């Protein structure tokens, strides 16, 4: 009797805690707190993102450390996070309460989540973590990020992943959480790993909450497949003709599309709204990754917000001083449409450049002034493209650097 009451109390407590965590997670994702950079916390908590991205970008940052608590918890308590804190899991459970179908038996199904983790890890060794974007916290984050901004086709797409996850869980009785979720899987694997070390056993050992586990041989096979797939995918989805312009501090383009988890933090945190999710303009792999557009503003010289909120290190955590020296692209002038070639009154690109990188050079032969870019000074901030009065195509544009 007392046991039952205790159990009841515990259940209530868990419920209250999970409600609180859900609200906190939504608050963080919506960026409604005055400290915008706090948005980085939620997706950074995931050890899946932390391990794979740290491996991929080969850096350990303060943001990576945010995943330590969950990592340690997983080593000792396995999927403790899933049961007690995960906002996606909590949402799914509550939605599933709407109807209570007989739980289909998925025990025969392979633990796809673990394969996903291994493939991603294998890819990460090459700097191309294949399925990093399947992290549920990133998916959760992007949903609420999308809700916050002005509504558009992009925000609809940002909303989709979470809806799909919830749908899978609703229709297929928690299949996502049990079999697909890489965050859940990595916790199981970490727990197992500790077990392996703890008992100094090289080969497999039965786990309490899962009947089916991969053997070490299989792990290596999966890792190898991950490496190979990463090579193939990177080749297959190599950015085509137009290379996108990424936020300042973005890692190498060939790896960016995999390291970016599409959490939407940078898009929403940008105070001038120039970061836009790529609607597929730069190839399939680049879909929904952040690109810079200078139609309505330019990358501000006194801002490094996007550097502060990237959980996976796809955008490096640059300081303001570092960011000011970071090049995202290079301005290029098209004199065939520049107003100066028609002797019209305009020098706005020269006047606005915050880095003093555009100079007017007078051509004695042509007897006109030509805006010339100093590649040493130009960071590709886009101020010149923004103010250029020539339309529809601007006479000065930012091009991605090779």
């Amino acid at each position: 009797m007392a046991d039952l009451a205790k159990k009841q109390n515990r259940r209530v407590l868990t419920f209250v805690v999970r409600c609180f965590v859900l609200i906190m997670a939504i608050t963080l994702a919506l960026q409604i707190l005055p400290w915008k950079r706090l948005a980085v916390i939620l997706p950074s908590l995931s050890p899946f993102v932390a391990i794979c991205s740290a491996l991929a970008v080969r850096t350990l940052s303060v943001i990576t450390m945010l995943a330590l608590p969950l990592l340690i918890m997983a080593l000792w308590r396995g999927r403790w996070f899933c049961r007690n804190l995960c906002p996606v899991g909590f949402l799914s459970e509550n939605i599933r309460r709407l109807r209570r179908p007989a739980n289909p038996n998925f025990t025969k199904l392979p633990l796809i989540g673990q394969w996903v983790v291994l493939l991603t890890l294998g890819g990460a060794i090459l700097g191309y973590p294949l399925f990093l974007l399947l992290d549920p916290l990133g998916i959760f984050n992007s949903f609420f990020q999308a809700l916050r901004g002005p509504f558009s086709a992009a925000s609809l797409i940002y909303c989709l992943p979470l809806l799909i996850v919830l749908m899978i869980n609703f229709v297929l009785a928690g299949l996502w959480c049990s079999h697909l979720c890489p965050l859940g899987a990595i916790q199981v694997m970490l727990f197992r790993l500790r077990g392996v070390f703890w008992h100094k056993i090289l080969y497999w050992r039965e786990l309490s909450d899962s009947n089916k586990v991969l053997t070490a041989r299989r792990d290596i096979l999966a890792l190898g497949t991950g490496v190979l797939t990463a090579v193939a995918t990177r080749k297959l989805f190599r950015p085509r003709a137009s290379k996108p312009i990424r936020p300042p501090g973005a890692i190498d383009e060939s790896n960016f599309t995999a390291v970016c988890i599409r959490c939407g933090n940078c898009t929403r945190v940008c105070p001038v709204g120039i970061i836009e999710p790529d609607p597929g303009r730069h190839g399939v792999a680049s879909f929904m990754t952040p690109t810079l557009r200078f139609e309505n503003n330019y990358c501000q010289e006194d801002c490094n917000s996007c550097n502060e909120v990237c959980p996976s290190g796809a955008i490096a955590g640059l300081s303001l001083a570092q960011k000011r020296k970071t090049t995202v692209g290079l301005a290029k002038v098209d004199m065939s449409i520049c107003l100066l070639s028609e002797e019209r009154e305009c020098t706005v690109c020269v006047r606005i450049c915050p880095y003093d990188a555009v100079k007017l050079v007078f051509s004695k032969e042509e007897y006109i002034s030509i805006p010339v870019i100093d590649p040493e000074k130009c960071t590709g901030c886009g101020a010149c493209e923004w103010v250029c009065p020539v339309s529809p195509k601007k006479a000065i544009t930012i091009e991605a650097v090779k």
Partner: protein
Amino acid sequence: MDNGLSRRTFLGVLGTTGFGAGLGSSAFGADKGAHLPGKAGKAAMTSRGSGRSPVRLAGGKVIQPQRELPVFRETDVLVVGGGPSGVAAAVAARRTGAKVTLVERYGCFGGLWTGGLVLKLPGVCYGKKQVTMGLCEEILQKLDKMDNAVIERNPGEQPTTDAEATKYVLSEMIREAGVDVYLHSWGVDAIMDGNVVKGAVFESKTGRFAVLAKMVIDASGDGDIFSIAGAPYEHRKHGVGLVCRIGNMDKIDQTKAKQAKKPPRGIGLPTPIPDINWVNMGGPESDCVDINDLTRLEMDHRRQIWRQMDKLRKTPGYEKVYLVEVASQLGVRISRVLTGMKQVTFKGAKAGQKFSDVIGVGGELNPGDPFFEIPFGALVPRKVENILAVGRCASAGPVIMEPMRCIPCSLVTGHAAGVASALAVQNGCLCRDVEIPKLQKHLREQGAYLG
């Protein structure tokens, strides 16, 4: 009589080189009788020859001896420069009830608008709406009534005016308003009493002379007066060009001309006179207050205009085109810019910044340019009193300066400075302390649009 005249006209204006030295308060005790133009000048000449003394070589150095300068005028508001902003300031101050003296270095009014052949008025409109009103609109309406004086007056267009018609209209407006004028007189010095500007010194064929005033408006375009007075300013560079007009545009052989892929360079844009176009020039970035640069540019540009003309006449179809005239004034775009109490900025404009002391608004040069308010504070210098900067000297950031330096905004700032100076004289206060609501009320009554 002789005594009275000399007491009135000869005052202790010391300071002969560079900076105007202190002026005794006795200056304002002098006779304030109305002057007819020329009378005071004649007195100066008759009583002491030309009123000038030669400069002497002393130890290899050229020394200007200390001398007393004749005071040609004592006035309420002195406007230095008769360009768009100077004329607007003088007319507005006179209409607001002040006694006004306007001094211009050339023989006509309008500055770069007329002498510089900058015939286009960009930034009159924002979208379809005309936003630079007041004297700007009044002048344009006067031009409307004349033949071949202004075109492109429809909503959203940038009007193009005829220089001669504009010169005449401005001259008549000055005359009708009852402004005292000295032409051919170059403002060279500020007269200071502590940090208060008390007038300016001019150089002319008659010799160097002083005009004492309660308020001074520096419409010189290069901040000649406020820079000497000690107001902080920014020295900027910009392209300096030389504009010309070409004729026989109606005699272009269109069948031949159409064979070319692209029209040739230097055919310019239409003017109110049907067969004449005006041709703009960008020119190299230069220091517009360096006489060496200005001299070289005049000669280089003239050669370029003739070379371009030669090329154009060799282009099939354009054989009959000829050069009508080259502007008599070099096209200086920017030089000294006041560091005012407030500054118009591009970022502010983009963010829709509002000013409590707004005195006018600017239009767009190109579609998509921001709408911007011009505050009175952009005309008021730091540190020195009773001088206002107008036209392309008004305080503005480098980007928003592109519309600010053009004629419509110059007319707007000139108009406001004129009214503000007159009100400051009436209230006996410092120019910077003028009552903003009163200033705005007067401006609105005079047809200005403040957003």
